[in-house]
């Protein structure tokens, strides 16, 4: 199994197209960092525009606000919406791409069970997703901290702002990236399932993105009838729950409590739903693939 996984990763990382995603992430992170380095003040003014009537922000406060932790939060907010496409590029290609190349039939004449084959393929997609997130973490968090330095992190919420002490931030990012890995694995599992039905990678990639877009729109729509009927069951609703790690509890005086999470049960619930989706998508993919006649 380990040998097969090594082979799979070798095949993925030998393809030039694999690096498109890494290149795309590196470019966008760098562009955001450059823009904020040279025009961060305007961005912060824009960000605080809605709150200027309720709070009096000093210039010193504003300059402290623009630190590596906030920049990383901004980058995550922007990129985690686009990343499903990058993940689908590999997961959607895993079975359909092999069918398209004609290598699927040769691979399946080898003494490997189809379940084992699927496990290896999916594991490789998950490792690729994690590699992508690690790359993003290094560039977005480490890069931003090196460029902008560290300070307390301010999170803007609809009901106001909250300040997280700088020493209380890093573990939240570790949790957020871990959660993002599960969220993106859900997209990967969906794309992987669709890949079983196709003989060309384009179909599963487009289908995955279409589903993610439609579900995201439904998740974001403020229509009361959907709030309790559809939204809680859409995986896209739960993909953004990583932000929960940056929502902290406050004491009676309104001071944030270090090391706290405002609604941990909600995060665990969202995480569980994503895990159920992963099992459902992957399980269905294996079930279909085991029965499938290989005609490619």
């Amino acid at each position, binding site marked *: 199994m380990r*040998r*097969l996984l090594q*082979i799979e990763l*070798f*095949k993925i990382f*030998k*393809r*030039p197209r694999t690096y498109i995603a890494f290149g795309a992430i590196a470019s966008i992170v760098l562009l955001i960092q450059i823009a904020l380095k040279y025009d961060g003040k305007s961005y912060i003014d824009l960000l605080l525009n809605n709150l200027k009537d309720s709070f009096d922000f000093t210039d010193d406060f504003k300059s402290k606000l623009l630190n590596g932790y906030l920049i990383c939060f901004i980058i995550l907010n922007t990129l985690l919406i686009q990343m499903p496409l990058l993940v689908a590029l590999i997961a959607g290609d895993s079975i359909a791409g092999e069918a398209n*190349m*004609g*290598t699927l*039939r*040769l*691979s*399946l*004449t*080898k*003494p*490997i*069970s189809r379940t084992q084959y699927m496990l290896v393929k999916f594991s490789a997609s998950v490792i690729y997703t994690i590699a992508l997130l690690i790359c993003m973490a290094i560039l977005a968090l480490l890069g931003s901290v090196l460029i902008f330095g560290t300070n307390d992190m301010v999170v803007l919420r609809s009901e106001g702002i909250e300040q997280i002490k700088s020493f209380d931030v890093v573990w939240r990012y570790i949790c957020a990236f871990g959660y993002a890995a599960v969220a993106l694995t859900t997209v990967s599992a969906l794309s992987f399932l669709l890949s079983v039905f196709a003989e060309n990678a384009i179909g599963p990639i487009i289908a995955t993105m279409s589903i993610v877009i439609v579900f995201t729109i439904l998740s974001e729509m403020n229509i009361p009838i959907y709030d309790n009927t559809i939204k809680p069951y859409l995986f896209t609703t739960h993909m953004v729950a990583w932000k929960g790690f940056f929502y902290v509890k406050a004491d009676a005086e309104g001071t944030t409590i270090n090391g706290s999470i405002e609604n941990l049960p909600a995060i665990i619930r969202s995480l569980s739903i994503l895990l159920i989706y992963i099992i459902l998508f992957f399980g269905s993919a294996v079930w279909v693939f085991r*029965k499938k*006649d*290989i*005609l490619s």
Partner: protein
Amino acid sequence: MAAVIQVRNISKKFREVKAVDNLSFSVESGQVYGFLGQNGAGKSTTIRMLLTLIKPTSGEIEIFGMNLLKHRKEILRQVGAIIERPDLYKYLSALENLRIFAAMSGIKIPEKKLIEQLAKVGLAERIHSKVKTYSQGMKQRLGIAIALVHDPSLIILDEPTNGLDPQGIADIRHLILHLSKDLGKTLLISSHLLSEMELIADSMLIIDKGRKIVEGKVNELFDPAETVVELKTTDDTSAFEQLQQSFLNRYEIEKRNDCITLKLHRNEVPLVMKEIVQMNIDVISFYSKHSLEDYFLSLTTGQSYAEAITN
């Protein structure tokens, strides 16, 4: 001799289409077994069933005396195959492709042996070149190296000479004979190149529309002395009438689209030729060929070989 492959009453239905219909055959150890049939006859479907790529709708397959579906891994460890065309990872080199499929076969093969394997199929100079730069013939040879790298005892080749030039076809023929005669491997080969099959196969199965037409040893199925003469004249219609009225009418004479055929013994060819000249028939060409092609086609569609390949 023990049967390496034993197929019993397998059928495969794709919705309403029966691709393979109640097919049974057996391949003995050490044989080169030819699998013949026109396009769409069900050869590839059968081969895919033998390799577990397609599940039979009904019937049973035993390989090495074991049930294929129950002992899939054990069986496939001893099988090497090429199905239709050897599609490989084009962005990888020949050596990388071979390394991948060798590892998937479940055995550790030293790098030196992999390189030797590539040298055996004539790819020594190009082991590090990406497969996308390979010609069809080179890909075919790499496919064969992959099929043989784990030293299987049963080799299944689906149209192994597809896309090869005459030299390539001859190379494959020699390789097949070497694997069978010198190394004692069992080979199941499907091909539409009937003349090639005749040169290498010990036994043969002909199928049409998914059904078995005939199975047996090549030397029992075909009389090597039997010949079909293809005669082309300036006026085939009147020549055909003349032949039917002559003493040559004791042979099987048939008028086809662009020629007249006579089925006869090889020793009788000079006599018939002399007779035709004496009948003042204006001959354009006189071609004597083995009857296998006609035998095959008469069993399947009834078309002449020439008709079949031009249609």
